[in-house]
């Protein structure tokens, strides 16, 4: 296995973003994906200007509050310049934000594709549709990409940064448009609809229906059939749309930014994800590694020093404080803590070295003392990512 080539210093996130229109932040859960997407968008506004949109899924409440995003939904809203000014930065452009509302997006999509008002009303009232739009987990993935397509085709923004929903499988949203297209173009779908449409059950399908009836009940099957019949009227629109969404993801103007930490599980997922992007010929622009512990923890000389302190804590602290006994205990703890975090830092450095197939841009972001909950914090994070 080849080792990763060194990151090219001439490449940077700032250069990447100046050449792209869409950045899709993806990666495992719990690594700061949402915050990183917001930070990149905010920094782009501060540094490059233009009109930048961050399409987010679920920002931390404190952050949403600080940016004035409380209660926003599908409709994009502009972040007040005042928010930047308070953080000591004069924005060169406009920062916009929207939060993904899956149910609303589905309803909009139905409204767009339904042939007439009656079909639309019937679909919205169908219990299966309500299930799909409200609870069907994978529908979040599709709708995120669908919204991206919708917004991008309006041509209102210079740059769109997308935060992807947390998924069971980080790849789900890549497949979602295709799956949606398959779903509506399947032969099976037509097969399912036939008997309820013609009331003619032929010999071949009869066993299936008798079994399905026994298990599911007739009403449920009728709901399913109605749902599929209604959806078929929108078949072409949907498939066309799903194809367009797929094309947009592989467009030259689109890039993916994999966000992770160096903990074992996330880093493994990030690596898998990067490999999949490459396999699908999608553009892997950058890997951002968050919460990386400081380098000094891995310094062997300092580690030796910490070991020395641990072994001679009593003598070392003598006369330096008003309580020698406590000083000894404190110095032991200090040394022990250094050695403990040193183990973690070395393990994480090893994980980073083993990160195969990394793109030219691989950025590490140091562990911040405090949570990021305002624009100042976002810009601080963004500055680490930027150059």
């Amino acid at each position: 296995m080849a080792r990763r080539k060194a990151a090219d210093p001439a490449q940077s996130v700032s250069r990447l973003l100046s050449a792209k229109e869409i950045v899709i932040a993806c990666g495992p859960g719990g690594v700061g994906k949402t915050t990183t997407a917001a930070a990149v968008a905010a920094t782009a506004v501060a540094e490059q200007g233009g009109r930048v949109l961050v399409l987010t899924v679920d920002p931390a409440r404190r952050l949403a509050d600080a940016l004035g995003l409380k209660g926003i939904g599908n409709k994009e809203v502009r972040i007040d310049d005042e928010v930047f000014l308070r953080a000591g930065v004069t924005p060169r452009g406009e920062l916009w934000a929207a939060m993904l509302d899956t149910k609303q997006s589905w309803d909009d999509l139905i409204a767009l594709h339904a042939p007439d008002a009656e079909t639309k009303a019937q679909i919205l009232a169908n219990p299966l549709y309500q299930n799909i739009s409200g609870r069907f987990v994978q529908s979040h993935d599709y709708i995120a990409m669908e919204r991206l397509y919708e917004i991008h085709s309006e041509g209102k923004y210079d740059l769109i940064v997308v935060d992807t929903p947390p998924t069971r499988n980080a790849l789900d949203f890549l497949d979602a448009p295709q799956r949606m297209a398959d779903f509506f173009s399947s032969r099976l779908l037509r097969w399912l609809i036939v008997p309820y449409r013609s009331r003619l059950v032929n010999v071949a399908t009869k066993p299936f229906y008798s079994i399905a009836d026994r298990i599911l009940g007739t009403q449920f099957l009728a709901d399913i059939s109605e749902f599929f019949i209604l959806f078929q009227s929108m078949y072409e629109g949907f498939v066309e749309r799903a194809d367009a969404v797929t094309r947009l993801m592989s467009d030259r103007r689109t890039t993916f930014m994999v966000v992770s930490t160096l903990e074992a599980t996330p880093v493994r997922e990030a690596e898998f994800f990067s490999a999949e992007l490459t396999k699908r010929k999608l553009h892997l622009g950058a890997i951002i590694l968050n919460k990386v512990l400081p380098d000094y923890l891995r310094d062997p000389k300092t580690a030796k020093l910490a070991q020395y302190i641990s072994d001679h804590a009593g003598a070392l602290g003598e006369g330096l404080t008003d309580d020698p006994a406590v000083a000894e205990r404190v110095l032991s703890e200090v040394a022990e803590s250094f050695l403990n975090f040193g183990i973690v830092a070395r393990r994480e450095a090893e994980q980073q070295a083993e990160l195969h197939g990394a793109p030219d841009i691989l950025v590490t972001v140091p562990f911040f003392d405090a949570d990021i909950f305002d624009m100042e914090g976002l810009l601080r994070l963004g500055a680490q990512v930027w150059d």
Partner: protein
Amino acid sequence: MTTAAPDLLALKLVFITGKGGVGKTTVAAALAQLAAEHAKRVLVCEVDAKGDLSALFEAAPTDFVPREISPGIWSMSMDTEASLREYLKLHLRIPVVGRIGPLAKAFDFVATAAPGVREILTVGKLCYEVREGNYDIVVVDAPASGHVIGQLAAPQAINDLVKVGMIRGQTDWMLEILSDANQTGLVAVTTPEEMPVNETLELAARVKTETTVRLSAVVVNEVLPELFGQHEEEVFEQLRTKKAEKALSERAGGPVATVLEAARLAVTMRRTRAQHLEDLQRGLDPEMAILLLPYLFARTHGLRTTRQMATALGEELGH
């Protein structure tokens, strides 16, 4: 621990959930290990099979048929199609080969449209194992917070959606098992960080309103050790003064500034996390059991970790 520890080992069916990345698989493995150490026959089921769970026992990935991966611990990975196959075999006595192919395909399709179907096959299989009594306890490495609700609510949702038919008849006994707090419990895993804590609080509220399952405990994973008590912190600050630092460096034979800085970082990390832990406690029902598991510096994976976590969990549960 804040209130009396719940007896998780007395339950028959325990779902472990939590936001991605908080270590719910680790906690599921630890609970399974702890139960096995108490001479119980354990079935542990990974619902979103990634193979991480068996790796925590140094075993190869498992499939739908449970396999003993450690003394007293059987492991399986959920597979809804296999579950459907088993269900049909048991209840309809359909010859499995031949007919099942297109039927399973059709079901996959229906399940995509009506999510309750897929979920019911998962929960149904788990409840079935409980009803049959093949194991003393079934530990489920369940999907992340948002998805587990859909799963636990599935029998009810199916009841609402399907008015008659065989599945309808099947959901009643499942609901009975799931609703019995003496048999079934949900454990939410979190870390003392902002987003996981928020998600846990949301989950706690949703479990109450949307499901019949009871939240038995909240496990806080990766709790950092407290470095200093209050007086010790004052002494630490005295050691960090320029003069003391210089003296220390001379005595130790090298610059100690970064060693001290690392400790300061550790203290800050601990403090930020303590704040989130407080928010968690404030947001949960006062009688909710909160179990604390330590941050492990040395190892994060493997049987050694599983045993350490099982011991820590056992202490928190008062075993």
